[in-house]
């Protein structure tokens, strides 16, 4: 069985970047200066991904203050609400308040935005291993206060995501649903134009896709649950809630070898839940063959 490694989500910031943000928030660094530091830090992250020989990795999202913020700030009709607890963690995000889904603002180039470090929202890397990241539409709605018609808003978000894919010319896209999702058909059109990696929460649910629709990969807790809906099943095994470095990845997945030729092994959550020093070591534990 071939193990394919994948790291997704916000990567913890270095001390250098944390200090830069602190200065930037106090007005001691300009947005242009902080943008240049984000670039440098992203390049360093890509070097580390190469060194750890990860097959796939998302953008480190160093300038995303939470997994919804840059999008919430870029869509007309969406405002930032109060801090809300992210699941049962000690981490918080600003709850979007959605009245409608209007026009998508500029996200591709340098731009100052309020209450988030400057854009662009992605710091891309020319590699087939690089994945763009978007939060799941189902989770976006669950994590927001929806003040308008839910169906209309969901359709609006779907159209917005398709516009992002078109504008940025996304080839490989990872969509992360941290909350239980009930609608996967919402990604069928995006799936036609991208290689889609879908990271989901849990292993049960009402998974329905149109005839013949398959994603490239679905990564959850139980690869059997969704394997017929994707080319390569995936499993979340590298624990983002533990500081132990040497995880027995091979031991955790070898029992799948009778049933799958290939399997994606991924992290259980964003590594942003870990101290940076641990994350930097843990990226070497994805490849169970080492």
């Amino acid at each position: 069985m071939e193990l394919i490694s994948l790291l997704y989500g916000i990567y913890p910031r270095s001390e250098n970047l944390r200090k830069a943000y602190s200065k930037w928030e106090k007005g001691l660094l300009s947005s242009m200066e902080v943008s240049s530091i984000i670039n440098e830090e992203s390049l360093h992250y890509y070097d580390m991904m190469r060194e750890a020989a990860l097959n796939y990795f998302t953008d480190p999202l160093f300038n995303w203050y939470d997994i919804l913020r840059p999008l919430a700030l870029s869509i007309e009709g969406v405002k930032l609400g109060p801090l809300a607890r992210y699941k049962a963690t000690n981490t918080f995000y600003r709850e979007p308040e959605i009245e409608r889904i209007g026009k998508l603002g500029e996200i591709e180039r340098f731009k100052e935005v309020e209450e988030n470090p400057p854009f662009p929202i992605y710091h891309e890397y020319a590699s087939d291993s690089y994945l763009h990241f978007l939060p799941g539409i189902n989770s976006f709605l669950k994590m927001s206060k929806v003040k308008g018609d839910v169906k209309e808003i969901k359709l609006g978000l779907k159209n917005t995501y398709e516009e992002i894919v078109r504008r940025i010319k996304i080839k490989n896209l990872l969509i992360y649903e941290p909350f239980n999702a009930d609608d996967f058909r919402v990604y069928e059109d995006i799936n036609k134009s991208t290689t889609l990696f879908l990271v989901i929460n849990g292993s049960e649910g009402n998974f329905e896709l149109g005839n013949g629709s398959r994603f490239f990969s679905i990564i959850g807790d139980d690869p059997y649950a969704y394997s017929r809906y994707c080319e390569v099943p995936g499993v979340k095994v590298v624990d983002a809630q533990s500081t132990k470095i040497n995880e027995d990845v091979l031991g955790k997945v070898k029992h799948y070898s009778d049933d799958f030729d290939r399997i994606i092994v991924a992290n259980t959550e964003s590594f942003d839940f870990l101290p940076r020093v641990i994350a930097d070591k843990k990226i070497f534990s994805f490849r169970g063959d080492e």
Partner: protein
Amino acid sequence: MEYLITQEIGSFRKPTYLSSKFRSFKRDEFENAARRATTETVDLFRKSGLINIGVGGEMYRWEMYEHPVSRMNGIKIFGPVRSFDNRYYNKGSVFGDISRKEPFHMEEIRLFKELNLKNIKVPITGPYTLMDWSFNDHYKDRAELALAFGKIINQEIRELKSAWGDETLQIQIDEPAATTHPEEMEIVLESVNESVEGVDGIETHLHVCYSSDYGLLFDIIPSMKVSVFNLEFANRDPISKGEERKGYADVKRFKETQEVTTRKISLGLGVTDIHRDFLEPPELIMDRINYALKFLEPDALRINPDCGLRTRSREVGFEKLKNMNTAREQVLKGL
């Protein structure tokens, strides 16, 4: 019997001479600065009319998690973990059996003894919150780790009480994480009870704030070895007078809990919001207190800010406390 005792919850903004060098002071310099800041803050509290002065705003502590865990064996801090935006806290990793390396709060008790100050309340971070905010890379499960923290806190409380002497010592167990995992309320209960198990001569308070469901807490109160529950309400209440006091709906549920609890329990009513500079006028605070008095007897009601006032400037913190005490006096006249 004093009615409507006013109290603070714990932290108060540190003076700059202390906060700017908090981590770089030499030991004796730190002791002098923390001592000066504590006495100045106690003076401020007194001027505001506050009855219970806590520990003078927690001038010996930088924050509530790192302070105790850095004084324990079996936990290592690898670095900061994000809380939100660009705000971080040092999250410890439990890698072995945990034990106390040194006391957490003895300096405060010694200072208050020396100054002969009464009416104090010592906040201690609770076992469930310490567990929830740590990586568990050693214990079998979360319950076992919470209980291990409970045993350490028990040891700390015993020593504080012993140093304090014969008079009753008020201890406040801070559990901001108490209701974040609804399925774990039994762990909250057992670990908090373990923290005070067999300790005589203390009055135990529990502080919980920003809960999405206080009902979870109310369900376990009858079995909890705690007398006073200091909760946050003002943050969720309208700021105009004459409203229905929507933010205080849970006071009625507390009353129902009181009725099914076989020992006396009191409520610490959060009447001032610590996340905004808006100074709640005494009339608004009176309105809030009077609303709570529809359900609770005045000897079972204490008055406090929602949470620690470290989030506000010292000036704003003082004004908020002053208005709180003015409101209390006005309400007392009408009783």
